[in-house]
């Protein structure tokens, strides 16, 4: 674009930049405060006047976080074996070494987000393609249902969901958090938007060549909607990571906690240890930020393409 910028526009842009930088600082602040707070000694944490930079860098908060609670690093259990045991608990086949529970919580959180991500991507890609390209009866109603359910907060169905989960014997099990996340139909909606852009002729010619439906799907559809899958993956990962509510409702035992839940139980009777809280926050935020920064480009590309289509 050729640019003939008038002084007025220049001034406007300058002011905008100043405001933007201020806003950026505000958006950066929580992360800055979490990271520095995680390394601040008690005196800085409890100081009435804000301490902008740790007076000394200490690992004390992380030590508190790691030493307060312990748990086997991982466990492999036989599902439903609880009916045969006297204790009413599943038989543990294999148990990892005892480690600080925070590590277990981190593993749980990652497992939860990754499992939700993979399941969502698979189911939503199939369904999105069908909704966009298959002219089966009832798809209009189905799509309407999906659109209406998309904005539904999970609190609306909290009680039936809890009852159902306990009926399925999944209460206090990480899958209880994963399945409802996968059920949330936003992914289907997103993948439908993507699949719309696949030219019908290509599908048609593949069919004429005698490819099976599944073959057409894997060789033609999936490569074409790949950016969408990437975007959906990151989107679901973040979403599931942040879904405090389901975790709060479904998980009750130390070994099954996610990081935010676990950190909450480390608080004392009447106290809030900000240092420990910040250490926990740093621990839970850093992996996801790293994931985000690595896949940032992919992500940006992905979400855009789906949306720009009407």
């Amino acid at each position, binding site marked *: 674009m050729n640019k003939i910028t008038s002084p007025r526009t220049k001034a406007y842009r300058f002011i905008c930049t100043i405001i933007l930088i201020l806003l950026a600082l505000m958006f950066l602040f929580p992360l800055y405060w979490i990271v520095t707070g995680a390394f601040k000694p008690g005196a800085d944490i409890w100081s009435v006047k804000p301490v902008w930079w740790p007076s000394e860098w200490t690992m004390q908060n992380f030590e508190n976080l790691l030493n307060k609670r312990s748990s086997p690093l991982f466990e492999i259990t036989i599902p439903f074996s609880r009916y045969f045991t006297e204790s009413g608990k599943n038989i543990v086949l294999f148990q990892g070494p005892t480690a600080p529970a925070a590590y277990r919580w981190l593993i749980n959180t990652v497992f939860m987000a990754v499992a939700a991500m993979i399941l969502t991507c698979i189911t939503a890609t199939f369904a999105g393609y069908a909704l966009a390209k298959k002219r089966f009866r009832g798809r209009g109603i189905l799509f309407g249902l999906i659109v209406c359910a998309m904005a539904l907060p999970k609190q609306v169905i909290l009680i039936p969901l809890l009852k159902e989960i306990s009926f399925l014997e999944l*209460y206090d099990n990480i899958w209880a958090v994963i399945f409802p996340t996968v059920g949330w139909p936003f992914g289907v909606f997103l993948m439908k938007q993507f699949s719309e852009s696949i030219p019908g002729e290509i599908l048609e010619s593949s069919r004429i060549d005698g490819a099976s439906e599944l073959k057409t799907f894997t060789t033609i559809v999936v490569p074409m909607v790949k950016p969408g899958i990437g975007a959906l993956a990151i989107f679901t990962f973040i979403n599931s990571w942040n879904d405090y509510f389901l975790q709060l409702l479904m998980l009750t035992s130390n070994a099954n906690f996610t990081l935010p839940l676990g950190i909450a139980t480390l608080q004392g*009777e009447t106290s809030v240890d900000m240092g420990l809280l910040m250490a926990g926050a740093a621990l839970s935020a850093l992996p996801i930020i790293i994931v985000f920064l690595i896949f940032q480009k992919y992500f940006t590309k992905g979400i855009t393409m789906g949306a720009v289509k009407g």
Partner: protein
Amino acid sequence: MKHTKKILALVLALSMVFTLCAFAQADGVEPAKEITLWTYPIGNWGNEATVNELMSAFEADTGIHVTVEYLDYTNGDDKVNSALTAGEGPDLIMEGPERLVANWGANGYMVDISDLFDDTDKAELIPATLAACTHTSGAIYEYPVVMTAHCMAINKNAFEQADALQYLDLENHTWTTENFFKAVQALYDTFGDTVAAVFCAGQGGDQGTRALINNLYGGTFTNAEHTAYTWDDPKNVQAISELLAADGIAFDASLQGGDEIAKFYQGVLKMAFCWNIAQQLNPNTANGPAEKTATGDDIVFMSFPSETGESSLQGGIWGFGIFDNGDEARIAAAKQFIKYFCDSEHTADAVKAANYFACRDTAEGTDLSGVWADNAIMNEYTKLMPYLGDYYQVTTGWAACRTAWWNMLQKVGEGADIEATIAEYMAQANEAAAG
């Protein structure tokens, strides 16, 4: 999707197994070898290292393995409720009668453990604690272990600076209403800002605000029979309006008890209304030195102010209750647990872990009066114990009443008419009290 199919298949297959197991469990009540305990952070009962020690001692003696889960006061209640809804409640729970008796017990989730109390136990336990753990139906839903009196605390250095120490009886840890307001004024004149907060963001630590308001002019919270709430007592109205009028006292809807303690610990507030011996020993659970704020100021615990100086303090009682999971073997094991920690030579360990006072002087011949003999702070604190007042927290509708109380304080704090607001919210509480 594969998972769902598998699960469905398994559910079908196992429903048959389940019926088999149900038959198998019917005969004999050999105590189970594994039970679960959920505990709130009561002193070091929220500390894994301490609890593990207690549990391994218990396992060594009885062969029963206890899996412990730690609750917090923010979400703990919700967790218990959602677990109960899902039918996955724990076997044992540690908390106070206001939850165990007035709520879960009254709603039929708890096992009546009156068979654990023989005549000696009944004689040894402080009557008020046993009474608090007994439901109006006569069933006992909690075995009390420890207790304390809730009090308040002041920042001695700040009082010194404001020349307000003259208003305190530091020897007996008491003061009068008149002196309390004088001290608040003096502190406000010196520091020019809020020095004490009537916190009301939620129910956390609300025993402090109740005790403050009731004691100032001798108002009551419930009637003597614990059947109805009586906050509209004109003496309470007077107390609230004087607190509202006082410079330096804020009704703060952004703080709960724990937040208030943190602010006091930081040195921002000069008084804390949510305090007891556990805080005195380890202020703000920050593992700093005892009786000191973050800035190194001295903390003095005080009785709540009243016209005569003789206040009636709110008691805190903690103990164990058993959830009825319909499994006799696990209930039997849980009872064994309670016997072990509440009424045996091991009771001293349970008491020490909790950082509070024992509910009895002897347990099965073991003397408990000396548990804290070597602790000067604990000994000094016993000066407050005679002021222990009525344990009214077991009045029906207690949980609803707590909610109504902090909501009322929020509204009044924002300038709503005191009498009308109290009447409105007290009516809600009384509706719950009427069942």
